[in-house]
């Protein structure tokens, strides 16, 4: 079946080429620098095909860090809407999973899942780069 063959090829390509976009919606910087750290020589996620993209239009995976604050909520939604399908959302860090220590702040709405459908939660405060990489890899394994 050529149709199934194409599907398999596309699935393979998607798994091998996840381009990520990073958005901090209210985090403390800890997970953010660990995300950037995964690009650097020790972790080098480019060997897994992961590129950090600048534009939401180019991205497949949205890496969110931090809880959602009132000011960043609309922006977070907009970035998600700008991403072409198929798209995935990964919540990186305890506070983006649940709100973490900032849970009861008056300006904090809670975890990313209050605003967007989250496909993968990576807990940790802050997440280690290994954890982030493993989270993305596990996400890719679930594709279709």
């Amino acid at each position, binding site marked *: 079946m050529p149709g199934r063959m194409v599907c398999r090829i596309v699935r393979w390509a998607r798994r091998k080429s996840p381009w990520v976009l990073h958005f901090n919606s209210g985090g403390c910087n800890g997970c953010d620098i660990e995300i950037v750290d995964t690009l650097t020589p020790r972790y080098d996620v480019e060997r897994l095909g992961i590129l950090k993209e600048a534009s939401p239009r180019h991205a497949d995976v949205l890496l969110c860090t931090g809880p959602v604050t*009132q*000011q960043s909520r609309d922006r977070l939604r907009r970035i998600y809407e700008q991403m072409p399908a198929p798209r995935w959302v990964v919540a990186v860090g305890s506070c983006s999973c649940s709100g973490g220590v900032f849970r009861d702040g008056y*300006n904090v709405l809670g975890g990313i899942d209050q605003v967007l459908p989250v496909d993968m939660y990576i807990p940790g405060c802050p997440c280690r780069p290994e954890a982030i990489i493993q989270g993305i890899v596990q996400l890719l394994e679930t594709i279709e």
Partner: protein
Amino acid sequence: MNVELVLEALREAFPTEALEPRAVPVDETFVPLPPDCVHPAVRILIERFGLRHLSTITGEDTGSEIVLLYHLWHGRGLTLRAVLPRDGAHIATLTDLIPGAAFYEREVSEMLGVTFDGHPDPGTLLLPDNWDGEPPLRQQRGGVQ
């Protein structure tokens, strides 16, 4: 910075006020001042002692009044303490003397609802533009947080 000299200068300028300095850890001196004396006092400090570094302004709602602490620094910490009423709290801005006070005043203003008279760019600093609740660091009536 010699704290004694500074106090002397302030006592000279405001002879009617009882300036009771208080040592606060770590190496800080608190000087209470009436709200309308803060601006002239800072002017004296700048002109006579070259004391221009304002570390920050702390605002606190103690439940009965609003306390403003102007943390200055000149080799040692010097804090001017002004007490404002809770309702209609306002004080003269320091931005004409120390432009760096702009953000601190905006923050105190939005967090506690204090008006800084003559601030060139009032408005929210950290809170969303459409914040409609009480200023977040105000104590709720009845003391419930």
